[in-house]
């Protein structure tokens, strides 16, 4: 990044969003702060002149993974908050201890090498042409494998998350309304079963 101040601001923003994502009680708030943290990281990537990666990070992480996470939180009734006593409870201290431990374990070896104290970045440029070129020549096999992996993940995710019930189009009509008052639908009209929750109806919407 051009100067240390912009980097420090970005880093503080990203880290606080990440900590908030891991500590907030409401899972929806967690997912949204995680989206903020991903965006902060994208800004850091842009500061490192990795344009394509920065935009791809926003497109994939903020635009897709965050939305997937939020959908999952909604579909699994995650709005029920976890029961926790106070902010400075034992799990908070556990979290801080783990963070310090892991940071120490990672950064001690990193900072003991002289390689990590470079200050002058080379004039690295990654025009999209060169990325495309590399993808099609040197990284062709990983590209094809990635295509296969993404297809498998797509199909697999759909199959796993598909509901086991047979796929009838259901219209939820309260039993009191009766069947005769609904016309013009080619799908079956079933009165609402007593045991189904609202949540399940949401998934067929």
């Amino acid at each position: 990044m051009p100067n240390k101040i912009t980097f420090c601001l970005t880093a503080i923003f990203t880290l606080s969003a990440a900590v908030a994502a891991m500590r907030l009680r409401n899972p929806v708030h967690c997912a949204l702060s995680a989206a903020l943290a991903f965006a902060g990281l994208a800004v850091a990537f842009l500061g490192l002149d990795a344009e394509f990666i920065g935009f791809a990070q926003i497109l994939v992480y903020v635009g897709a993974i965050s939305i997937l996470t939020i959908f999952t939180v909604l579909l699994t009734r995650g709005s029920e908050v976890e029961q926790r006593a106070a902010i400075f409870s034992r799990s908070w201290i556990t979290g801080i201890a783990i963070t310090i431990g892991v940071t120490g374990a990672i950064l001690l070896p990193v900072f003991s090498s002289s390689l990590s104290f470079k200050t002058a970045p080379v004039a690295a440029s990654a025009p999209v042409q060169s990325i495309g070129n590399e993808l099609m020549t040197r990284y062709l096999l990983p590209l094809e494998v990635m295509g296969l992996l993404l297809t498998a993940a797509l199909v697999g995710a759909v199959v796993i998350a598909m509901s086991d019930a047979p796929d009838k189009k259901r219209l939820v009509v309260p039993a009191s309304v009766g069947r005769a008052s609904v016309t013009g639908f080619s799908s079956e009209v079933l009165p609402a079963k007593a045991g189904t929750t609202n949540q399940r109806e949401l998934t067929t919407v």
Partner: protein
Amino acid sequence: MKEVACKSTWPHGRHALDSLMTMLDQIFVTIKQWLLTFIPENLHPIGSALLSIVAIISVFGTAFALTTILERKGLGRIQNRYGPNRVGPCGFLQPIADAVKMLTKEDIVPYAADKVLHYLAPIVLTVPIWLAFAVLPFGRNMSAIDLDAGIVFFFAAGSASELAVFMAGWSSHNKYSLIGAMRGIAQMISYEVPLVLSTIPVLMLSGTLNLNEIVNAQSGFAFGVGKWNVLTPWGAAGFLLFMIAATAESNRAPFDLPEGESEIIAGYLTEYSGFKYALFFLGEYLGLFAVTGLAVTLFLGGWNAPLAFLSVLPSWFWFFAKFGALIAVFIWARGTVPRLRFDQLLNFAWKFLVPLAVVNLVVAGIWHFASVSWPAPSLSRPLEYLETVAPRWLACAGLFFAAYEILGRVLSLKRAPRTYRYAE
């Protein structure tokens, strides 16, 4: 930013008229550089960015106001009535009345709503969309930023604003808002796939992700008609797919079920009033403008004139003329086509548009390799040119049309005939 020279196409080289037209074409660039001389040297990057921002906000803010009134009058005429016609001459000061109303309305926040998210949602919607305007080339040398990966930036900015729909729906603590929000997000992420896939042939055949370069690749004239991407089979198909996906991305009719007034009250916008609602409204229209601008850039030749002798008119005039024409098409579609049901909407995206977009990719590949293996001779020999180009056209257009027909027939096989039950 690479400066593009203004090619003179005036046949007899009248230099005075040429220089006048060039000056008119670059008038905004000149004004901006003149304004920059008042700012000290080291603040030039920030000053340049600020001037571009002011220009974009003023132009597209005015466009928003004009579009609201034109849409209401246009829809009114389609529905055999006058639109608003009281407030100014023929009702054209209606946006000002609307603005006054929105600003003075009471801002009601539900008691159980999540206050922070409820407040932030309109902002999260609008800000990334303003960002997306920065890469669009509005005229020759007239894009705010010249990015190497311009299109990826555009789509990233567009997808960042989808979280706002969820934030609005969830924070309102209202089941209709939540259902509307979930439908809205499902629709937006489903239609992102054909949107991006339909632009890939353009990127493939222009060889670059830079929007200025894509517009430059569409300059030049063949038989007096511009070499726009929409005049090729893959371009026409891509343009149609892009327009349909863009309509769905901006939640416009016929894809506006998440905010359809008769179905779900106002969907995720139910609990918003006053200025926040105005911001949502603004954000939606701005999203529409952004994808329209991208459609003009990618498929309709950007700021290039359609016919050779018309390139005396300034480049920014042509951009906004095409832009206005596409907005008129959107308004027309809103007034004419009925709304799609939600499962029909998602089926349409995943089972129809995505396979067609993939077939379009194949068609574009065939076109490219056919044009490389059998290059078209120069345009001075029209008959030979047609002989070389026509088989290409027939093959590519035929392939796409065959895919469209087959897909349409296969998908409509599964629909059972309608059964009607009547009240006794």
